[in-house]
């Protein structure tokens, strides 16, 4: 049995070596993608370009507006003199937000009434808008607090010191600077690997079927299980090499920390590779032409990638969708990656993910072997 499997493995590697472009395809695109997407994948909201309209021209209004410029989150890109100019700005330029202070702002404040800051925001990208709104609220709150305290200080200095203040101390764990690359780079590693391994294996069996060598091989004493192993082991080796390459490049370049146990990560990598190999394999057994393999591959990869928790949090999805993601090996791998890189957790926390991957692998393998009978019927 092992001789036959070995025969298959040798053949696959020989073929891989002869494929002149394979070496390029397996090395260069993954690295380029790692670098480009590592930078591109971000939900950061920094340097938001804003336009301001100060129709009050008071000390208070200037104070408020200067706080925005001061934070570094916002950049005052334009000072407008009338509201009509907004129409050509919001949604048509890179200025998503405008601040407007009406005349009488300072007067209301001094009279002890509520003054208003008007914010016009481009809601198109609701995510950026919400985060920016969060910052605006923070600045506005701070302004209110400071103003109220100052006022109290002028009236009854003794009391001013005892006004109750409740602050919220934010302590972001694992990623104190909320560096989005630390979140996304592990995700990019997983995604690139998924794409590559599935496409490699999806074509594995179909190609032999199309050129006719499958028929020739099926007439030999080789067993279905041996054939499948012989085909997938080389891809496993290639996939492993690629994951390691991409991971090393990604973490070194973006300086993502690694706080966990390498062996735990390795176990996760192995299990993930096995499950993606088997997805590709299943696709291969379901396709009679390479075109079909292409289609099935694509249409598995798109949702597998997008719904894996890579960018869109699984908890934001409706319950039914969340159920579907249980079938996605990338979902588990991302938890393992982020867990070992950023959280430094071990098997005691990650065992459900490992188990799920192992289960997926076994089920997929069983189905593939069952489907792949040595007959042309």
């Amino acid at each position: 049995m092992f001789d036959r499997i070995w025969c298959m493995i040798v053949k696959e590697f020989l073929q891989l070596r002869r494929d002149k472009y394979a070496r390029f395809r397996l090395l260069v695109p993954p690295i380029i993608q790692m670098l480009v997407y590592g930078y591109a994948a971000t939900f950061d909201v920094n340097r938001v370009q804003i336009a301001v309209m100060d129709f009050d021209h008071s000390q208070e209004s200037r104070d408020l507006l200067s706080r925005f410029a001061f934070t570094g989150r916002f950049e005052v890109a334009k000072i407008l003199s009338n509201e009509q100019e907004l129409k050509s700005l919001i949604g048509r330029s890179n200025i998503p937000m405008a601040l407007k202070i009406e005349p009488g702002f300072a007067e209301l404040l001094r009279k002890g009434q509520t003054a208003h800051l008007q914010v016009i925001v481009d809601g198109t990208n609701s995510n950026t808008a919400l985060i920016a709104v969060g910052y605006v609220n923070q600045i506005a709150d701070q302004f209110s607090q400071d103003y109220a305290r100052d006022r109290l200080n002028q009236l009854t200095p003794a009391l001013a010191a005892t006004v109750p203040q409740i602050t919220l101390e934010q302590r972001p764990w694992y990623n104190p600077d909320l560096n989005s690359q630390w979140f996304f780079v592990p995700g990019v590693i997983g995604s690139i690997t998924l794409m590559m391994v599935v496409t490699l294996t999806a074509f594995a069996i179909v190609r032999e079927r199309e050129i006719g060598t499958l028929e020739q091989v099926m007439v030999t004493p080789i067993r279905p299980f041996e054939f499948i192993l012989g085909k997938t082991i080389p891809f496993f080796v290639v996939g492993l090499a690629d994951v390691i390459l991409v991971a090393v490049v990604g973490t070194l370049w973006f300086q993502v920390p690694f706080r966990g146990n390498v062996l735990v990560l390795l176990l996760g990598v192995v299990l993930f590779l096995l499950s993606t190999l088997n997805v590709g394999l299943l696709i291969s057994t379901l396709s009679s032409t390479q075109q079909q393999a292409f289609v099935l591959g694509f249409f598995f990869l798109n949702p597998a990638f997008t719904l894996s928790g890579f960018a869109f949090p699984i908890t934001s999805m409706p319950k039914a969708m969340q159920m579907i993601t249980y079938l996605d090996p990338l979902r588990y791998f991302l938890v393992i990656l982020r867990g070992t890189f950023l959280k430094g957790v071990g098997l005691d926390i990650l065992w459900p993910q490992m188990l799920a991957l192992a289960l997926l692998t076994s089920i997929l393998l069983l189905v593939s072997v069952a489907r792949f009978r040595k007959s042309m019927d």
Partner: protein
Amino acid sequence: MNDAPSIVVDQLVKQFGAFIAVNQVSFQIRAGEIFGLLGPNGSGKSTVIRMLCGLLTPSSGSATVVGFDAARQAEEVRQHIGYMSQKFSLYNDLTAIENLQFFGGLYGVKGRALDERIAWAIKMSGLAGSEQLLTGELSGGWKQRLALGCAVLHRPQVLFLDEPTAGVDPLSRRQFWELIHQMSREGVTTLITTHYMDEAEYCNRLALIDEGRIVEMGTPTEIKQTAIKGDLLLIECSPLGGGLAAIKQAPGVLDASVFGAALHVVVSAGRQPLTELPAFLAAHDVRVGRIEPISPSLEDAFVSLTGSRALGSEPSQ
């Protein structure tokens, strides 16, 4: 030689939905025989071979290869057979040696035995010195022999060849047949399918198959003798088409068809066609060139038995 038949096929049927590809086929092949399954494309030849190799399951009937049931003991059968598929499926991106090593390994041929067999296969296919060439770069004849080599590394008792000479030049085909005969002398049973009528002459016995049924079986000589009921004539005439239409009306003519640049005409025995027919044709404005009796070829036999033209045949010279 062993007396028990090497291959026994009994009322074999294969149906794909409503289409019956193989219809009650039965034959027996003795050890060491070269048995040909001759018929046009789509007649069911490949389907029969695939059932014998265990690649397809029969809808009904049975097939036994060297004592093993092809349907239920397919794995045992495979240990004892060699198979060459229609496209001599070799890996084009592997060298000749690598292909041989691969298939040898799959058949469990190892160590010294494998080296010897590979050396033999290289010599036999004339690839000495070209072992490192990629198989995809080889021309038809070499690939064919290489594929044969790959199929017999494990010295099987039975050889299944599915249209092994399709697309190969005549000289290479001749060499290939010499190899088959050599193996037959060593006791290998060969079942070969082909649609080349002239090649079928090289087989010990033939079965003519058309539309899934066996139309006739026997040695090539037997078939040629019994198929044609009457005398066979070759008539060169002009116009050819007009001549064909006319001669079919002629008295005593049982059948006529176009073969290359001439007509083959079957005349019932006991007439004087050499004198009668030219006159008949002249009366129909058909000028006659050569007219002479010829001995029937397999193609003549086939046409006569099935009433249809086989494709891909070489014109008889």
